[in-house]
């Protein structure tokens, strides 16, 4: 089959090599068929991808106090609300924006002295903080595809939330440095409590949640020539596993960077990071951290390069301050904000933030702003990154990718946020 060139519209209205942000895999081989400005087919897309693209229709409403109006009026209302607010402001970088739009939203937070945060603050802080203590041994996904002869899934079956991870990055071997054939890649599946690894595996191991950190530490202690013994549990299996890990040429440890387990125990991620690092003494190893889609990895990258911090940034004193332990109830509990700007899809707002913003005047600029599941003062619907808006977006492994605009949508989020920025500037904010 010959594929149409990227971005081209052949007579059959096919657009090739479209990047899907349905999850963090950011598959870039999606072939979309577009008819009458609607997406009618998404070839190669998984169910999450099909849902991500849908038919490409999004609302294009602009509302103030629930009343339809022109964009200018809405922007004026938003600028008056945010620029005139007496008290702290909150800016949330939600999903489904290009990095260009995220950069502007963060710029607005800087100018207004707001608290800025993103989705990862809710879903992945433990892993980020552990990474800041220890660093990490990682790889881009192609390296796992091309090199990993042992893949260990730690309490995650990617097929559910990252459906094409295995086939694109770690599945049937097609790697440059791997022999062909089904036997050259060993798959180990570790289940922790209800968080099961894949059913198909060369070796399966089940741990109770309270055994998890102990098992990880036990494995690492063995690399250092020590045994912990009595406390670790599942000793025979761990001995076998430690042997397999050190005999492999390149180990990929796959874990879910956005799982509910992250919140239960900050220690498990740190133990995983430490194990992946330590494996680089006897062999080579990388930790593959599965992250969600919607370009939330992009939001983290932008926050990091503009402020030096990946999330939970407070600009109140005129410069970015890192407040990773002032999130959720800690953040909203003590003193209410005066107003908030949600840039991006309001559906991506974590429950805690949504609760924190209840009763506040909120401006939402982003895809489906008018359908926000909470009361909104100013709603401006925009296009979605990678469907209606082209620009920079990120895969879960921090590889930057070129998002395309495939069908026409409502006004651009980037342009709308830029106009908001200019209006705030006119107001001297």
């Amino acid at each position, binding site marked *: 089959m010959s594929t149409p*060139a*990227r971005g081209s519209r052949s007579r059959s209205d096919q657009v*090739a*090599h479209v*990047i899907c942000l349905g999850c963090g895999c950011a598959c*870039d*081989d999606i072939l979309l068929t577009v008819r009458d400005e609607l997406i009618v087919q998404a070839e190669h897309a998984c169910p999450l991808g099909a849902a991500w693209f849908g038919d490409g229709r999004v609302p294009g409403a602009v509302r103030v106090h629930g009343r339809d109006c022109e964009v200018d009026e809405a922007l004026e209302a938003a600028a008056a609300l945010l620029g005139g607010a007496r008290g702290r402001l909150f800016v949330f970088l939600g999903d489904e924006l290009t*990095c260009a739009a995220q*950069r502007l939203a963060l*710029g607005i937070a*800087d100018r207004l002295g707001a608290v800025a945060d993103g989705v990862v603050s809710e879903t992945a802080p433990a892993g980020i903080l552990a990474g*800041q*203590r*220890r*660093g*990490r*041994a*990682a*790889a*881009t*996904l*192609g*390296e796992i*595809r*091309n*090199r990993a002869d042992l893949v260990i899934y730690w309490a995650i079956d990617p097929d559910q939330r990252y459906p094409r991870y295995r086939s*694109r990055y770690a599945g049937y071997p*097609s*790697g*440059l*440095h791997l022999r062909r054939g089904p036997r050259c890649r060993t798959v180990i599946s570790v289940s922790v409590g209800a968080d099961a690894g894949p059913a198909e595996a060369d070796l399966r191991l089940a741990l109770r949640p309270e055994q998890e950190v102990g098992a990880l530490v036990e494995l690492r202690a063995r690399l250092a020539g020590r045994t912990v013994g009595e406390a670790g549990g599942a000793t025979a299996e761990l001995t076998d596993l430690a042997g397999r890990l050190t005999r492999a*040429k*390149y180990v990929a440890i796959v874990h879910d960077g956005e799982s509910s387990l992250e919140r239960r125990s900050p220690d498990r991620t740190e133990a995983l990071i430490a194990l992946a*690092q330590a494996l*680089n*003494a006897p*062999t*080579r190893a*990388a930790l593959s951290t599965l992250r969600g889609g919607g370009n939330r990895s992009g939001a*983290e*990258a932008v926050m*990091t*390069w*503009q*402020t*030096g*911090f*990946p999330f939970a940034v407070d*600009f109140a004193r*005129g*410069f*970015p*301050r*890192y407040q990773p332990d002032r999130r959720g109830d800690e953040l909203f509990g003590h003193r209410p904000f005066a107003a908030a700007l949600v840039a991006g899809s309001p559906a991506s707002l974590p429950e805690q933030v949504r609760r924190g913003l209840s009763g506040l005047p909120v401006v939402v600029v982003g895809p489906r702003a008018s359908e926000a599941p909470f009361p909104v003062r100013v709603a401006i619907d925009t296009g979605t990154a990678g469907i209606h808006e082209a620009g*920079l977006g990120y895969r879960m492994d*921090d*590889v*930057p*990718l*070129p998002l395309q605009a495939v069908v026409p949508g409502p006004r651009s989020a980037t342009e709308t946020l830029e106009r908001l920025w200019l209006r705030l500037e006119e107001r001297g904010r």
Partner: protein
Amino acid sequence: MSAPTRLRIVGGVVHDPANGVDGAVRDICIEDGRIVAEVPPGTPTVNAHGMVVMPGGVDIHSHVASSACNHGRRLLPEEHMADPAPAPALLPGAGPSRSGTGGTLPSTFTTGYRYAGLGYTTVFDAAVAPITARQTHAEFDDTPIVDGGFFVLLGNDEYLLRQVDAGERDRARDYAAWVIGATGGYAIKVVNPGGIQAWKSGQRDLTGIDQTLGSSRVTPRAILETLTDAANALGLPHPIHIHCNNLGVPGNVETTLETMEALDGRRAHFTHMQFHSYGKTAEGGWSSAADQIIEYVNGNPLVSVDVGQVMFGPATTISADGPVEYLLHASSGRKWVNIDVELETGCGIVPHTYAERAAVSALQWAVGLELFLLSEDPWRVVLSTDHPNGGSFLSYPALIQLLMDRGYRDAQLKRVNARLLAGTALADGLSREYTLNEIAIVTRAGPARLLGLRHKGHLGVGADADVTVYARDPEIARMFATPRYVVKGGQLVVEEGQLRRAPGGRRLRLSPGYDAAALRDVRRHFEAYGTVAFDNFAVRGLRDAPLEIG
């Protein structure tokens, strides 16, 4: 008020070594971003009487805008918390006034402001993995004032190594040309040729330049020859930019000299030479071999180097050289990031502190100074700290004082751990003091010439109007840390020592020609092994046209 399109810098003492001007009093005239011979009466003026006027600084080797830098930023919240950078008080409408944080890897806006605040107006990021190039462009978009470009990593690229293995040098050249154009890069960078590929493959004994990579015929020598010839055949303005094998290892002087000799008769730039100029004592310990290296450099006019000076204090080692960073982590126990980058390269990051009382730090400091002080041609031995590897770019003024002021240097020499310094030229006493003209060469005219930037690094008619004006100060470090005026592209960005404007910088990039037929094979390679489609690889929609080659 918008910035004037014309400007006259009046009465300064001009150091413009590229045009043979060494301390002459003359006016510098500027119109529409360029140096011109004359401007009409009534043109706004800058009073530079008694002050020192130089072209804007040009950093030939730094790490400021890349995916790797951002991994480093994310790793170092403690540094950023300790160095807040409030937004500068710019004139209204004079560019984005944004806050940020500093430390060894500052946030992007802060990077731009601080470079400009030092009088530097052009900066090259020395190591960008092609697959991450679009992030470098995005970060440069948020790095105001400075003109920016970058070097693309090719010395461990799987496709390139295959061509080397097959002896397909033309194909390798076409591939290199395509990668530069597709990523918006400026030059070819080689880091530890073959060594990163070896590290990723579990081979840890690649130490000689004639050793083969695994079972292939690829050797570091073959990689170097192929890419050096490619860069020169393509007529790239900057030759190949080489980070040799065995960085930071005692006795690596042998590898470094072997590498230089392997490329004898070819134009080549060797970077952060300090880290590659170590001898080994009979007991296997460290010693300085700066004299051997600089002797070779002095005698070979096609060779150029930047020094990669070590400055005492906090640093962050950040490099595509993954195996070196692993060794540093294993020996220091500091936190460590490693990212293996598919098909292309690696990335390692480890924070590091150079301490006066540490013998190895002191030796590294001395080796760098020896390279500077024994250099016979400042045009080919230029200033860098390999920011932030040997120290932050903010330490350039202190480095300049070390070079210009023997008393200052000797006082510091007395404080450092001298255990490994016995018999070094520096310990024996080097009296040389750099002149202002030599400083102008090693910080702007020389790097610009080595980079082939004909409009940078000088103040002749037609040059970009990037000018720095320093008020004289007996404390040299203070003088160079706080220029009185900085002009970038004709706009006065620093006035009376205060940052007042922050226009966006230009992108310095190339688009060399290649045989388009060669791309068919590249596409097959991407389809077989890549996870980013060939059609999604090239960075599109870049601002600023590519510079002309030739």
